[in-house]
C-alpha cells in the first residue's frame, strides 16, 4: 500500500537562501514519526510545507488521496494568545470549522463531537474554564482535543512538550501512542526523549533530511545533522533512541 504522504525532492526557502534542500520523506498509515533537529534547522518549515501553508520551490508533496485528507494540527503555544477570551469548550469547537465549511452555523453534531473528545481527553470537568486559567498540560490537551474533534486522518504536533512539565510530558506521550493506534502521528520536536518510548520513526532535519527510518541513528549521522557532539541513549525495547544536545551552536 502506498504511503499516506510522500515528499519528493522538496526544496524551499523564505527568501533567497533555501531553508530545506532536496527533502524526501514518507509517512505511512501506522507511523509515529518524530521530526527532530536543531533549532532553526527547518523542522517547523517542513511541517508548514506539509500543512500546505507554504508552497515548495521545487519537488512534490503528494497525498495518497490526491488532495490533503482531514488534518489534525496542534500548533506551538507561541502562535496564539493564551489570554484570548474563550472557554475550553469553544476552543475545541473551533476544530469543527473545517467540517462542512466555515460559513456553516454550529449544529448538534458539532456539540456531540466536542463532548465526545472532551471526555476522551478527560477535559469534561474543565470545559467551561477560560483557556487563560488552564495549566500548560491542560491547554496542550485542549489543543489536541481541538485537532481531534474533526476526526482527522493524520495528526501533526509542533513542539508539544515545549511548555509542559516532565510528568505531563510522559502522559502526553502515552496519549499520542494511544491515538497512534488509529491514525499516523507526526511530532516536530527538539526534545525526542519525551516521546522516546513510543516513537516508531525518526526524521532528522537540518537544512537537509539527514536520516529517516526506524532503526537506531548512528552517532556520526547525528553529529553531521546537528553539527555538534551528541550523546546517544538507548531506551531499550521497543525502540532505541537518542538524546541530542539541541541547544548547541550551529550555523
Amino acid at each position: 500500500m502506498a504511503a499516506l504522504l510522500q515528499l519528493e525532492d522538496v526544496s524551499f526557502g523564505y527568501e533567497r537562501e533555501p531553508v530545506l534542500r532536496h527533502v524526501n520523506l514518507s509517512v505511512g498509515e501506522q507511523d509515529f514519526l518524530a521530526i527532530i533537529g536543531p533549532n532553526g534547522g527547518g523542522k517547523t518549515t517542513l511541517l508548514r510545507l506539509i500543512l500546505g501553508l507554504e508552497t515548495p520551490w521545487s519537488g512534490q508533496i503528494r497525498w495518497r488521496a490526491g488532495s490533503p485528507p482531514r488534518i489534525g494540527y496542534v500548533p506551538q503555544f507561541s502562535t496564539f494568545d493564551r489570554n484570548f477570551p474563550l472557554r475550553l469548550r469553544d476552543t475545541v469547537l473551533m476544530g469543527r470549522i473545517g467540517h462542512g465549511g466555515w460559513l456553516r452555523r454550529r449544529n448538534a453534531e458539532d456539540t456531540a463531537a466536542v463532548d465526545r473528545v472532551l471526555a476522551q481527553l478527560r477535559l469534561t470537568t474543565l470545559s467551561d474554564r477560560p483557556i487563560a486559567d488552564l495549566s500548560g498540560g491542560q491547554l496542550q490537551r485542549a489543543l489536541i482535543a481541538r485537532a481531534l474533534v474533526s476526526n482527522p486522518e493524520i495528526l501533526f504536533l509542533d513542539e508539544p512538550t515545549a511548555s509542559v512539565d516532565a510528568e505531563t510530558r510522559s502522559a502526553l506521550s502515552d496519549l499520542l501512542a494511544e491515538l497512534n493506534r488509529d491514525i499516523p502521528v507526526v511530532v516536530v520536536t527538539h526534545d525526542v526523549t519525551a516521546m522516546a518510548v513510543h516513537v516508531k520513526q525518526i526524521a532528522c532535519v537540518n537544512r537537509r533530511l539527514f536520516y529517516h527510518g526506524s532503526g537506531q541513528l548512528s552517532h556520526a549521522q547525528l553529529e553531521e545533522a546537528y553539527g555538534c557532539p551528541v550523546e546517544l541513549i538507548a531506551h531499550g525495547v521497543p525502540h532505541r533512541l537518542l538524546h541530542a544536545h539541541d541547544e548547541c551552536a550551529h550555523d
Partner: protein
Amino acid sequence: MTELALFFSYDFTRLALLAGLLASVLGGVLGTFVVVKRLVFITGGISHAAFAGLGFCYWLGVDPLIGAVVVAVLAALLLGWVSDAGTRSQDALIGVLWAGGMAIGILFIHMTPGYAPNLMTYLFGDILTVVPRDVVLLAVLTTVTLGLLFVLHRGLVAVAFDETFARVQGVPVRALTLLLLVLVALAVILLIQVVGIVLLLALFTLPPMIALLLVARSFGLVLLVAVLTGLLMTTGGLAASWTMDLPTGPAIVLTGIVLGLVVWGTKKVFGQGRLSD
C-alpha cells in the same frame, strides 16, 4: 436637571448622542478585533494616510469624504497585502503612510485658496458638529458590520484567535483579514468626524481593553461589553463636555481612560477574577 433637559432639547445634541451610540458599536466591535489581532498601529496608519485623500478632495472642491474613503481603503489593502507577503517592512511602511498622508493632506489644504477648513475639527473632532448625513452613513456602516459579523463570526473569531490553525482548517484567512481592514478603514473615516484623527484610536482601543479586563470566557461577551463601555465613554464625555465646557473629543477620550483606570484599579484591589469567574 434643567441642564440635562436643555441638552436633549437641541437637535444637534441628540444627533451627537446618536453618533456616539453608533461610534460605540463600531469602535467596540471592530476595535476588539483590532486589539486582539494587534492591528492598532495599522489603524493609526490608515487614519493618518486618509488625510491625504481628504486634503486632495478639498483642494479639488469635491466632498473630502470621498478622497478619505478611497485612500483609507487603498492603505488598508496595501498594508494587509504587505503583512501577508511576510516582509518585515510593514512596520516602517505604516510610518511612511502615517507621516506622508498627513504631509500631503496639509499641503493640499495649504494650497487651497480662500477660507481654510477647520483643521482642528479633522484632527481632534467635534461630535457636536455632526450632520444628519454623517449619522446615516454611520448607521449604514454599523448595519453592514453587524450583518457581516453575524454571517462570518465563526471564521472571524477563528482568525482572530489562531490564524495558522484557521488556515489549516480551510478558512480564507487572507480574505477575512482584508475585509476586516477595509471595515476598519471605513469606520475610521466616519469616526474622524466624531473624535478626530488623533483621538480616534481611543475608541478602538479603550473599550476593548476594558472589556478584556472584565471578560475571560466569551469573545461575544467581550464585544458586547466593549460596545457598552464605548457608550459610557461617549455619553460620559459628552456630559462632561456639556457641563464643564470642554472640547468633546478629549472629553470622550479622557472619560474612557478614567473608566479604564477605575476598572483596572478595582481589579487590583478586589482580586484577579474577571466578570464571569
